[in-house]
């Protein structure tokens, strides 16, 4: 395996820790869901850690990132406090978004993570807007927007490709192709399965990489970011990956073929990267064991913190609807049921 340009051993250790954290965090989240402490939808990205971490590790800390509802990993990789992320999943007042957003709507603006969104395709224009703002302000930030294979079929995504190409906006479109949109496989949803080729029509450089290989993802995203930052052109990378769980916790995952699942299991991005780290003597087996124990403690602490955190006071229900709230007494009576 070749290492991406400028990737040192410390970077590789950090990437591995980030992947471990996401994996353990999401396994814990699934336990919390089963115990009834997390409600709503819980979409896990287990299996997609290389795609998430490879991407984030190539980004600059001030590059804005937008994502879908499957975004615990993006938040954590961006450095969001695991305690605040878990507390958000439990809907507590200490949560990243004060318990209002939940699993699908994490945001950590201080870390330039501009949020997870629930409407398929709906976040892509926001990513374009963040790129527009960067260019407008003459900053050299690059906006990165991650979305699924299913989302590429939304008209708004094609509209964004066109505007990005038309106005040379500094954006990297990342298609996280896990080959399914809920129960529908890519071949049933897309006329052309090489999704990155859609960008050809808009003059946007685009290509596909192995999304299960964190170093390959990092290298590809680094190149896409270079194009956007230095050449001031949009770019697009398709990350071919696989999710190991159902679409969300409520999906029994009966549609996908058992052999197919097994084949992709053998390519577990954490296992393969661990082998690389050992093989290239970046880490010893003891280092890895110690890192796993440390991550385990962080996740357990996050869950304990979340469980002990207070509920959101009901009196705060109507706070934050507006940035400039108005007092409209005539409607006061209708506000609460």
């Amino acid at each position, binding site marked *: 395996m070749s290492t991406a340009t400028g990737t040192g051993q410390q970077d590789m250790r950090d990437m591995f820790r980030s992947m471990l954290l996401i994996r353990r965090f999401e396994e814990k989240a699934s336990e919390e869901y089963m115990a009834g402490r997390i409600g709503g939808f819980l979409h896990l990205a287990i299996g997609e850690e290389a795609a998430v971490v490879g991407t984030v590790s190539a980004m600059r800390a001030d590059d804005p990132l937008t994502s879908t509802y499957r975004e615990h990993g993006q938040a954590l990789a961006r450095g969001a406090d695991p305690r605040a992320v878990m507390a958000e999943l439990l809907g507590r007042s200490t949560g990243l978004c004060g318990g209002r957003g939940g699993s699908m709507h994490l945001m950590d603006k201080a870390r330039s993570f501009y949020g997870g969104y629930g409407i398929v395709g709906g976040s892509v224009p926001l990513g374009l807007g963040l790129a527009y703002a960067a260019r407008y302000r003459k900053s050299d930030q690059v906006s990165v927007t991650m979305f699924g294979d299913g989302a590429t*079929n939304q008209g708004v995504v094609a509209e964004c490709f066109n505007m990005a190409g038309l106005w040379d906006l500094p954006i990297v479109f990342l298609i996280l192709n896990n080959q399914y949109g809920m129960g529908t496989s890519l071949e049933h949803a897309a006329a052309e399965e090489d999704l990155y080729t859609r960008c050809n029509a808009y003059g946007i450089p685009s290509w596909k990489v192995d999304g299960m290989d964190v170093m390959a993802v990092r290298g590809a995203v680094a190149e896409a970011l270079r194009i956007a930052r230095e050449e001031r052109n949009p770019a697009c990378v398709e990350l071919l990956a696989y999710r190991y769980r159902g679409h969300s916790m409520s999906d029994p995952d009966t549609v996908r073929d058992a052999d197919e699942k097994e084949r992709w299991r053998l390519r577990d991005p954490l296992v393969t990267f661990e082998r690389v780290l050992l093989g290239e003597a970046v880490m010893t087996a003891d280092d890895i064991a110690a890192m796993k124990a440390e991550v385990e403690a962080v996740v357990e602490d996050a869950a304990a913190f979340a469980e002990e955190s207070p509920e959101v006071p*009901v009196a705060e229900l109507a706070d934050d609807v507006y940035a400039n709230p108005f007092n409209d007494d005539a409607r006061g009576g209708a506000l609460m049921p």
Partner: protein
Amino acid sequence: MSTDPAKPVAYRDALNQALREELTRDPDVFLLGEDIAGFDGAFKVTRGLLAEFGPERVVDTPITEAGFTGMAIGAAMAGLRPVVEIMTVNFVILAMDQIVNNAAKIHYMFGGQASVPIVIRMPGGAGHQLSSQHSQTLDAWFAHVPGLKVVCPSTPEDAKGLLKTAIRDDDPVIFIENEGLYGKKGPVGGPDDLIPFGQAAVRRAGTHCTVIAHSRMVWVALQAAEELASQGIEVEVIDPRTFRPLDLDTLASSVRRTGHAVVVDEGWPEYGISAGLATLLYEACFDWLDAPIGRVTCADVPMPYAKNLEQAALPQPADVVAAVLANIGQGVA
């Protein structure tokens, strides 16, 4: 597939029966939507229909609501009878242009030459901690638009009978189910039992106050009615069932009898279903009212994720009880 009329049927299965019967009856009927074929639909309403009717009549679409809804409208102009499933009402927002600018206008704008016999069905509602983007009640958006018919069934029987009517209707019908009702069981009609549009249903008779509620809120209102009955207060619970057309006569005659009205709506309070119904009732019954019309609605906020906040935001039976008590306390009941 035969159905035993005595056996209670879940709301989702009642819808399934209506679809199966209409697919069988009319070869021009076909279904399309996301994950409705191989996956049986996100709420399992279309279970088994792919196997029975094949992929040409039960069509999985890409995630592209504006495109496939518009396509179905075009197919309806050619005389087919598409039944579109939008996974939830939150995603129909992407198709609003096609629905409002095309489906609702075509018959009128072209002087009656082409009709659009399409059904667009989808669940709305909240209560499952799905947070702001997945917990909306947008009935009022559609009820606002001339050219659409708007149906909101609250029982398995209505779900089946009204869906069959919708499929046979020659106009675009917006058929709004509720995520909280799919498991609700009850009797259903047979293959020839259609329920006409524009007929409200009296869910409980009473004399002290009229409570108007639709979809899942019917059940909230009925729970409140039980509670009030134990205090000696008898409310009349009326379910409009369809908003376009609306059976204003049944609502107004009840309000004229009781002198009191409370409207319960899972949607937001401002400019919505509760506001519209209250206005129509003021116009029809002003001289009979003993108190201003009461309203119980969702809080005027995007739906929060946290369970306690969500429950506080949604209309609960206790809110209806309080609204009725306040209403009759203000009057001369």
